């Protein structure tokens, strides 16, 4: 699995044994704070350090950009971040400062921490301040705590099917929001379920193979670390439906850190959280909130700016930490 993004952004942890009690301080934390641009041409990846070339202004009408944010966990108030609304606001300010306003925002789930109405209210209020005209959501497991996601569906489920899946087209790109956090089975990973998979297959059928596809869901659609539940049991079937397409981008959240993988014409990307970081796989006793020194918090939280260029064959994803300057 490719971890280039991890190295260049400097997601380096002290792996020695005095190490990572995730609720204690991380003593060694190297951080470069630069954004890395991944682009793909014909299935091969090339990377270049993000520079001021970004943001000259999209000259072609079909070029566009959007932003992925994830895991805002409104309602979380423990040591790893006592006020997640502050860091979410920082992320919003960062979005608003982008040279090209994104066409929309995609939130890949865990909007709330405990599915409380007040948490969703607070999130909505904050997101009203973004420059984006539209926000698309998929739920995380933290949004499903009341009767299989009723609170979430009431607010964000309009026009969706089942537990909240849907698709839309934007400037020639086909976006599909999937829900893999409902009806989870004991001992299992994320789950899409038979009904949603059938819907997905039908949804993609009429699309020509040259249509760029973006799938987004909360839990990663590839197995990053099974012991911590970082994967989806039936994602292989979903991915089999997109194999024929020339460009597929999969955007996920849930793990609160950036991971990327390229498999053929499918590029996978997980986003940082705007609330709190989590440890890298296997580096801590469990996957939960990881406390870092206060001055470093903004380096481990961030957004992803995704650019689609018509002349290219794919979408370029740029992760940047909250304190990285553009």
């Amino acid at each position, binding site marked *: 699995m490719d971890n280039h993004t991890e190295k260049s952004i400097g997601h380096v942890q002290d792996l020695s044994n005095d190490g990572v009690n995730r*609720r204690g301080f991380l003593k060694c934390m190297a951080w470069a704070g630069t954004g890395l641009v991944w682009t793909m041409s014909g299935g091969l990846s090339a990377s270049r350090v993000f520079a001021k070339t970004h943001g000259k202004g999209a000259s072609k009408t079909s070029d566009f950009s959007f932003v992925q944010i994830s895991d805002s966990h409104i309602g979380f108030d423990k040591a790893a971040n006592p006020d997640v609304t502050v860091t979410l606001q920082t992320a919003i300010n960062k979005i608003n400062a982008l040279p090209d306003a994104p066409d929309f925002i995609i939130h890949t789930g865990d909007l709330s921490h405990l599915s409380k109405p007040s948490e969703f209210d607070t999130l909505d209020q904050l997101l009203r301040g973004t420059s984006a005209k539209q926000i698309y959501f998929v739920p995380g497991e*933290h949004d499903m*705590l009341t009767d299989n996601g009723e609170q979430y569906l009431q607010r964000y489920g309009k026009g969706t099917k089942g537990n909240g899946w849907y698709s839309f087209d934007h400037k020639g790109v086909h976006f599909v929001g999937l829900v893999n956090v409902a009806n989870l089975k*004991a001992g299992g990973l994320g789950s899409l379920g038979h009904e949603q998979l059938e819907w997905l297959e039908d949804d993609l059928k009429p699309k020509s193979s040259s249509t760029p596809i973006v799938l987004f869901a909360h839990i990663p659609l590839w197995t990053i670390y099974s*012991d911590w539940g970082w994967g989806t049991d039936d994602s292989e079937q979903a991915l089999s439906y997109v194999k024929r397409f020339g460009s597929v981008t999969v955007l996920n959240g849930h793990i609160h850190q950036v991971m990327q993988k390229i498999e053929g014409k499918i590029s996978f990307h997980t986003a940082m959280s705007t609330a709190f970081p989590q440890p890298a796989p296997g580096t801590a006793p469990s996957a939960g909130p990881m406390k870092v020194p206060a001055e470093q918090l903004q380096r481990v939280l961030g957004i992803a700016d995704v650019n689609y260029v018509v002349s290219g064959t794919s979408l370029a994803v740029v992760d940047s930490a909250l304190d990285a300057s553009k």
Partner: protein
Amino acid sequence: MKGTCKSRTSNSALTLTIGLLLIVLSGRSSASQPSGSAIHNLVPATNSSDAGTEIKIDNFAFVPGALTVKTGTRVIWVNHDDIPHTVDSTEGKFRSGALDTDDHFQFLFMDPGEYQFFCRLHPKMTGKIIVQP
């Protein structure tokens, strides 16, 4: 069945009031009543086997992961983790709802058998209670 026992003062007062009322009305030992009813979660301990046995939830794990008890035992799960978890019976026999840090859930096991449970948020977290006669 949704558990109703969480650590809140008002719930404790209500628990005691309803519990006392039930003891007066029932006039029988709690061991002979069917398991799984919500009422049992409100009845305070009336005999020694009902002393309460604790499962700690921490670091995304139930500790111990397997517990053997006698019928009539009340098991209490306490969340010591800094993230919410749930306690859900795989057969729908009990369901805690979201337990945040320091919340707890309890269930009185009346019938012998094996009761598997897991966390609905983090389904890799599993455990079981073995209830012996």
